C-alpha cells in the first residue's frame, strides 16, 4: 500500500519532469537554422531523440531523487534497509522494452538516413578541392572561386577531393558532414532551401591552421545564381583573352590564394613551412645536398610538379604535395606571379 502511493507520486512526477525537460531544452533553440532539405528529416529525428532523452532522464532522475529523500536514513537509525535481492520479471521488462525501443529507433534511423540521401539525377556537379588550409570551388563552366555559390531549391552534388590530408566539409546549417580522403572523390549531395550566407568549416583536424579553414557558402535564387555563373564565366574569359595565352601574374596570384600555396610560402620574406617567394625568381637557391641551382622557369616548374626532386637547404624533404594537376599554363601564371615579387 505504501509502495502504491510512492509509485503514484513518481508516475506523476516523471510525466511532469519529462514535459518540463523537453519544453526547457526546446525553448533554448537547439539547432542552427535549417538551410538544406536534408536538415529537415535530421532535425525531426533529433527532436524525437530529445523527447526520448527527456523521458528517460525523468524516469531515472525522479525515482533516484525521490529515494534519496524518502528513504534517507533517519537520525539514530543504524539498521539495514528492506531485504530484497531482485525481481526477475522486472529485469526482463527493463531489458525487453528498451530492446524493442532500440530496434524501432534503428528502423526509424535507417529510414531517416534514406531521406537524407535521396538522389536527384539532375543535380549539377561542382568540384571542391580541400587543402591545408582552405577551399577551392571549381565550376564546370571553366572558372574557380574561393566562395561556394549555390542555387536555392536545387540539389547539387559536390565532387570533393583533398590535396593533402583528411578534411571534412561541414556547413552547420546544412547539417550533413562528409570527410574528404586524399586520393578519392567523395560525393556530397545537398539541396539548399534558404537564401543566405553561411560558412563551410573544416571539421576534421587537419594540422596547424585547422581552426581557420573556412570559406563562405552563399545560397542565392536560381536567377541570381545563373547571373553569377554568367558573370564569372565572362570574367574568366576576359582575363584569358587579355593575356592572349601569355602567362599572367594576376591569374598566378589567384592560384596562389586558391591552391594552398599561401599556407607554406610567404610573400614578405617570412620563413614558413616552405621558402618564401619574395625575391625568389632569379636568385641562387642552396639545396640540401650541398649543390645550388638558379631559380629560373625550369626550376620553378619542377618544384611545383615534382617538389620532391630538389630540397632547399634548411627545409624538410618531401613536405610538399605534388601539384602536377596544374596545367602548364597555370604553372606559367604562377611563375609570372613569382617574378613580380621582388
Amino acid at each position, binding site marked *: 500500500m505504501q509502495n502504491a502511493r510512492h509509485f503514484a507520486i513518481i508516475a506523476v512526477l516523471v510525466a511532469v519532469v519529462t514535459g518540463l525537460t523537453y519544453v526547457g531544452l526546446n525553448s533554448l533553440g537547439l539547432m542552427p537554422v535549417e538551410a538544406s532539405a536534408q536538415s529537415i528529416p535530421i532535425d525531426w529525428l533529433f527532436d524525437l531523440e530529445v523527447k526520448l532523452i527527456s523521458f528517460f532522464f525523468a524516469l531515472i532522475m525522479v525515482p533516484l531523487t525521490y529515494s534519496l529523500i524518502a528513504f534517507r536514513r533517519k537520525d539514530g537509525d543504524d539498521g539495514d534497509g528492506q531485504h530484497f535481492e531482485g525481481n526477475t520479471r522486472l529485469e526482463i521488462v527493463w531489458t525487453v522494452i528498451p530492446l524493442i525501443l532500440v530496434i524501432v529507433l534503428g528502423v526509424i534511423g535507417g529510414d531517416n538516413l534514406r531521406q537524407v540521401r535521396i538522389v536527384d539525377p539532375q543535380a549539377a556537379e561542382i568540384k571542391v578541392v580541400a587543402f591545408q588550409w582552405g577551399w577551392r570551388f571549381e565550376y564546370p563552366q571553366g572558372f574557380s572561386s574561393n566562395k561556394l555559390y549555390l542555387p536555392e531549391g536545387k540539389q547539387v552534388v559536390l565532387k570533393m577531393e583533398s590535396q593533402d590530408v583528411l578534411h571534412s566539409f561541414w556547413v552547420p546549417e546544412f*547539417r550533413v558532414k562528409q570527410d574528404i580522403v*586524399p586520393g578519392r572523390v567523395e560525393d556530397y549531395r545537398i539541396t539548399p532551401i534558404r537564401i543566405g550566407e553561411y560558412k563551410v568549416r573544416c571539421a576534421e583536424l587537419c594540422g596547424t591552421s585547422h*581552426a581557420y579553414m573556412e570559406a563562405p557558402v552563399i545560397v542565392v535564387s536560381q536567377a541570381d545564381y545563373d547571373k553569377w555563373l554568367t558573370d564569372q564565366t565572362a570574367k574568366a574569359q576576359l582575363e584569358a583573352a587579355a593575356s592572349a595565352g601569355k602567362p599572367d601574374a594576376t591569374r598566378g596570384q589567384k592560384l596562389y590564394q586558391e591552391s594552398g600555396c599561401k599556407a607554406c610560402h610567404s610573400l614578405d620574406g617570412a620563413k614558413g613551412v616552405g621558402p618564401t617567394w619574395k625575391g625568389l625568381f632569379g636568385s641562387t637557391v642552396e639545396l640540401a645536398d650541398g649543390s645550388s641551382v638558379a631559380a629560373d622557369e625550369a626550376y620553378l616548374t619542377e618544384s611545383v610538379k615534382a617538389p620532391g626532386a630538389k630540397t632547399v637547404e634548411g627545409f624538410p624533404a618531401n613536405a610538399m604535395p605534388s601539384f602536377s594537376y596544374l596545367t602548364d599554363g597555370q604553372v606559367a601564371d604562377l611563375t609570372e606571379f613569382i617574378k613580380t615579387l621582388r
Partner: protein
Amino acid sequence: MSKNSSRSVGSVLLFAAAGFIAGFLVAVLLHTLTTGKFESAYLLDLPSWLLGTLLAVVGLLYGMLGYWGVVRGIFWQVGGTLAGAFFVTLVRWLLNFTGGKYSLFDLNTFGFTEPAWVFGAILGAVAFLVGVGSLTDWYKWAKGEATSEHHADIPGWRKYFGVSLDHKVIGIQYTFTSLVLLSVGGTFALVFRTELAKSGLQIISLQLYNSLMSLHGMLMIVSILLGIAGVMNYLVPMMIGAQDMAFPRLNAFSFWIAIPAALLLLSSLALGGFDTGWTGYPPLSARAPLGMQMFFVAVWFAGWSSILGALNLIVSALRMRARGMTAFRMPIFVWASLATSIISLTATQLIGLSFQLVLFQRLFGMPFFDAAKGGNPILFQHLFWFYSHPAVYVFVLPGLGIISELLPVFVRKPLFGYKWVAMSSLGIALVGFLVWAHHMFASGMNEYLRVPFMYSTLLVAVPTGVKFFSWVATLWGGKIRTPVPMLFVLGGIIVFLLGGLTGPPNATVSTDLHLTDTYFIVGHFHDTMFGGYIFPFFAALYYWFPKATGKRLDEKLGKLHFWLMTPSFLIVTLFMMRIGLLGMRRRIADYDPALGFDPWNLAITIAAFGIAAAVVIFFINIIKTLRSSKMETGNVWNSRSPEWQVPSPMPAHNYDHEFEVVGEPYDYGLPGSVYVNMHPEE
C-alpha cells in the same frame, strides 16, 4: 630489487655539490679555452651556472640512486636513449647515407634525426626496465639462479619508489602515477581552455594548442588506464581472498613499463609536439613533427602495460578465489574487472599495431596508409577504433563496478539483480567490440556499413539501461547514508546518465552526420568519462583510503571537493554540447566570433578552473590526512566485504588464514547472515 644500503642525506647533498662545482668549472674552462683568455666575468655567466645546475641535479639524482629504483630507471632510460640514438647515427654515417657531406656530429642535419630518436626511445624504455630492476629476477632465472619467492619491501614510504612485488604497493604506485598524469593532463586542459575563453589567439600558438590538446587526450587515457589498474590491483586479490596476484613479477613489470611510456609521451612536447589529436589519423600523422613518433612509441609501451596487467588479473580472478566463492558470489567489482580485462587483453594490440604501422610508414616508407602509393587512410581508422571504442568500456566498466559495489553498503540493502548487473558488464564488453565504425559515419567508408553499426551501437543502451534501473531499484526502500564516497557514487550515476542519454543521437547515422567532430561529442564523451571513471574513482579513493592507510579522509574537505566539482563539471559539458549543436567544431584553437560563442566558452573555462580547484582540495585533503595521527583501523563503512573484516592497513600478505565464503556478498538487511567466515577452521 632496491638496494637496502642507501646513502645518508649528507652524502646525497655532497654529490649534488660536487656536480655543481664540476659543471661550473667545466663551463668556465671551456669558455676560457674557446676565447683563449680567462675573464672573471665568466664566473657570472649564465652558461656556467646552467651547466653547474644541470650537473647538480644529475649529482642529486645519482646520490639518490640507492633510495629510489625509479631514479635509477630514469638514468638508464636517458643512457639507453642516447646509446640507441648514437648507434643509429653511427650506422647511418658508416653506410654513407648523406654522401659524406656531413660529419658524424652534425646534430642539426644528420645526427639524431628521426630514426635515431625512435630507436633511442625504444632502447631507452627497455633500459629503464633494466635500470629499475623489474627484469632482475627473470634474468637470474634465465641464468639458472634461484630467487626468493617474495622479496621483503623496504619499510616506510620508500618502497613505493622502487620495484615491489606486493599487489597493494603496486596498486598504490599505479594510483599515484595516475593522479600525477591526471594533474599534468588537467593542467594542459586549463592552458588551452584559457586560450579558448575568448575568440582570437591570445596566449599560445596554434601549434602549441594542437600539441597540448592532443597530449591532454592521451595523457588522460593513460591516466585512466593506470587508475583502473591501480584500483583493480589493490582490490581484486583482497576481495577474492588471495595473497597476491597470480604473477607478481609480471604485475610489477606491467606497472614499470608504463613509466617510460609516460615519460616518452611528455617528451613529445619537447620534440616538436604533434597536431593530430590523440587519434593520430594519417596522412596528417605521417607528416607531423618528431613528437608524433614519441607519442607512437609511448602508446605502444603503455599498451603492453594494459595487456599484461589484464592477463594477470584474469588469471587471478579465475584461479585464486577463496573456498566457496563461486562465480555468482564474487564481489560485483571483480565481475567488472574481469569484463574490462577481457577487452584490454584482446583489443589493445590493435591501437599499438595501427600506430606502429604509421611509425613504419614514416621510418621505412612502407605506404600502409598513403593513398598515392596504394595505401588506404580509412584502414587506419578501422584498426584504431577496433581498440579505441572498446577502450571506453575499459575506462568505465570498473567505475560502474565501483558504483554497484558501494551502493549496497550505503543503502544497507542487497544490490538489486546482482546476476543481471554482473552479466550486463559482460554484455557491454561483448557488444562494445561490434560498434567501432560508429566513429566513422562521415569518414567515407562503405556507406552500407553505417546501418549495421547504428544497430549495434544502439544495442549498448540495453545492458547499460539494466545497470541504471538496477541502481535505482537498489536505492528503493533502503536506509540511505550519504558520506563522501556515496556522494561521488550518486554524482557518478547522474553524470553517466547524461553521457548515456546523449549517446543515441550519435548512434543514429543521420543525426550523427551533424554531431560528429563537434563540441557535442566532446561534451558527451566527458560525461561518460567523468560519470564512468572520475566520479567512481574518487568514490573508491575516499572509500578505500582508510584500508590502505588506516586513516580516513576529511569529510568536510571531501564534501567541498564534491560540491565544487559537480556543478562546475555540469556547466562544462552541458555548455559544450550546447555550442556543439550550434556549430562549434572540436579541436579548434580559435573560433569565429560571429558565432556568438564567446560567453559560453568563457563560462566553460571558468568552470574548468572550478574542477581544478576541487581536485586541489582533494590533494590537500590527502596530505592533511596523512599527516594527522588519528587512526581509523576498523570496518569504517560497516561493510560485509572480506577486506573490511581485518584491521587496516592491510598487512603485507593480506589475510593470515584463508577465509571461506559462506553467503551472498550483499545480503544487507538479512539478519544473521555473513558473506565470509574469516576463521573457517575454528
